[in-house]
């Protein structure tokens, strides 16, 4: 049991938890730090997703989703860094699912019972869009690793 600090988390700190979660995954599991680009809003269009996307859906105090989407090439290199030789579709799905699972774990740890977090789901296939909350405006955080570009999409309302 941990004593609460009595302060409600702001959207900024909540997004920060997910960003830190992704960066930590790269630093610890892939053992090569990723860099974060400047976040921006998806104003006119829904952000496109890359080849593989891991998603967790959130309900409770806020409703929405958090997704990590990355191209196949990037995930393949990540698997290689992790001493994995099998670059199959299933393994790539597992990797992106594992990243989503890590984000889920971080959220459970830091947000408490006011958030209910779904089991991670994986979407394979480029160019689609995700189902966002009606009023939410997705925040897109570019994740740069080596020469690859992934994105963390946070949409909470």
């Amino acid at each position, binding site marked *: *049991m*941990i*004593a*609460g*600090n*009595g302060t409600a988390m*702001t*959207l*900024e700190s909540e*997004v*920060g938890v997910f*960003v*830190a979660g992704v*960066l930590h995954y790269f630093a610890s599991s892939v053992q090569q730090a990723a*860099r*974060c*680009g*400047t*976040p*921006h*809003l998806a*104003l006119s269009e829904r952000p496109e997703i890359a080849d593989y996307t891991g998603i967790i859906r959130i309900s409770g105090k806020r409703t929405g989703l958090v997704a990590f989407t990355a191209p196949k090439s990037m995930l393949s290199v990540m698997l290689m860094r992790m001493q994995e030789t099998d670059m199959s579709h299933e393994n790539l799905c597992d990797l992106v699912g594992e990243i989503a699972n890590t984000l889920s774990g971080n*959220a*459970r*740890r830091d*947000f*408490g*019972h*006011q*958030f209910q*977090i779904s089991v991670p789901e994986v979407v394979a296939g480029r160019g689609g869009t995700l189902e966002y909350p009606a009023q939410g*405006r997705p*925040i*897109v*955080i*570019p994740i*740069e690793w080596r020469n690859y570009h992934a994105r963390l999409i946070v949409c909470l309302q």
Partner: protein
Amino acid sequence: MARLSLNQRVQWLPLALAAVCTAALALLLFTGVRLAARLQSASSALQLASGLTAQPQLLRSELTLIQRGLETQTYVGDSLRSLAAGRTTSNQAYARLETAMRAAGLAARTDAASRYAQARTHWQPLDDGLARLEKTRSAGLYADSAGGSTLTASGTALKRAVDELLATQSHNTAALAGELGDLAALVRTAVVRDGQSLRTLLLGGAGLASLLLATMLYFAWRAGQAARAASEAQRQIGNILGTVREGLFLIARDGRIGGAHSDSLVALLRAPAPAGQTFEELLRPLVDEKTLLGAGKFLGLLWKDKVNEELIESVNPLSQIEVNFQRAQGPAEQRYLSFSFRRARGAGAGTDFVLGVVADVTDRVLLQRELEQLRASNDSQSSLLLQLLQTEPVQLQSFLNNVEVGVRRCNALLRSPGIGAAELQQKIQGVFREMHSLKGEAAALGMDSFVERTHAVEELLAALREQAGLAGDDFVGVVVKLDDLLSHQQLLAAMQERVDQARNAAVSASDIPPDKHGDTAVISTRAAPAPRPAGLEQILQRLAREVSAPGAREVRLACEGLERVPAEYAGVVRDISIQMVRNAIVHGIEARDERAAAGKPPVGTIRIRFSEASPQEYSLLVEDDGQGLDPARIRDHALERGLLDVEQAAALNQTGAYRMIFQPGFSTASEVTEHAGRGVGLDVVNTTVRECGGRIGISTQPGKYTRFKMMLPRHDATDPAQSSAA
């Protein structure tokens, strides 16, 4: 002195009765034992007296036998021995009789003592005579002769002594028997009396024993009743403790928690039964050290009986605490617990225990928060509606469009690639300019909610600008705030649309003749037609009032030619004018006192003039009669802010100093406010003018004036060469 209550008296009465009965019974038994001992002695005395009564007659018979034996010269030795034995027995009996009489209390009675004394008196001569006879030997009493046996001298002496004793003691023996008979009768009377007393005593004892038994039975009955009541109370307490939703527990003076507590306590604290634990140990996993310390001090106050527990309730640090319970899987469970404490007094005057009550108030706290948020939202929406109604609709529409465009431009900047330090600083400056420009316009329109939001973004950017090792994720806050700004803009746009619809409806209704529509006439007079769009001059006048209001300065704004600003430059001139007016008031116009000291009129003047300077250019002139630009001061501030190093500062000439004021981040304001201090205003002007392909000129005289002249190219201008060619 404490008085016993009725209930307590009822409880103590049987106990007192039992004690009295027991004491009385003990006394009776003691008396009975003494009486029995006396009765025993009296009985013994009676037996002795009765025995002694026959003794004189037996002795006389023996004497007579000796007398006759001597007369017939027969053997008298046995009689002599029997006489001696009788005497000894009698003497012993008298001694024992005396002892028995004393033990029976008869010695103290005059009549019995007198009888005994007389009997001894009469016995004494007989005893003496018998003593003398004992000295006589039984052998040699006879002498045989021819004529038969004759008494010898000793035989003759014996016979004489026996005859004499029989003769002299005949009367005495009868008297002795009489005295002893009387004594026996007296003793018998005493025995009978003592026997009766003993019987009475035994009856009394039996009564008391019965009473005592009844009392004991009553006690046993009461104890049984009390045990049943205690058992029932225990059962009921068990039911309460098992049913109540609050966690109830007792804290002893040593801080330990009592064995009895409600079942809910375990569920509420997610901890095993706390019996034997100290309260501190119970609390430690739930709260931080500071709260734990506070709770200890608070409990310390409760033990002080002089402290009013109602008064200190407000300082209870555990009145509402947030706790997170870790679960085996999933997120920690966040709950709100409320602890309250009451002193529990026993029979004594002091506090024996402190009753602790813990309740789960999570639902209440969350509901309260929701209500507060709802109330804040309602207040906020009322305030926004007021802002809307106070702002001229066309101006507002324009401003809302500008906000959206501004946010989109910021977002485009953030979206652009590049995460190097210089690129991130450029993004900061770009967003800063947009926000500052919007903030100026919001202030000019009196849109406080936008001023607050844009100012919040500026605050964040200012911190980032100074931050070492800046990274992309540091901009998360900026994006979240931009999102909030855009949401706010959309909210106001939606509200404005509704207000416009309501206004249009009211205006349409006012077109209908009042005589046909009754109340419509009233509506039409109340609903004023939409005001004519306010010009830039009005916006600037309002801005001047807003910016100068908090200070001790007063400003007069003189505008000229603003109504002739062409549509293509409407936004540019508005943005530049807003920043320049704000800049002139904050940095140029002095306070009233300073102006008076300098011999200037107390009200400062700012002139703005828009004109067609030439067929190729427009001119926008902004001039204030304030303190002018001071190159030395500019240089110092640039040094302080790290915009120049010492060498660069030393080499800075006057023109260079004037150029410095357009640098991003340069400001001579001593503190950051909503209107100044970020060093962005003139940067916005500079950027805007340059984006238009224009230029800026400055002329100033310290203590007199500052004049900015912005030259903006005319896009409708014809090339002079082409014109001449034509």
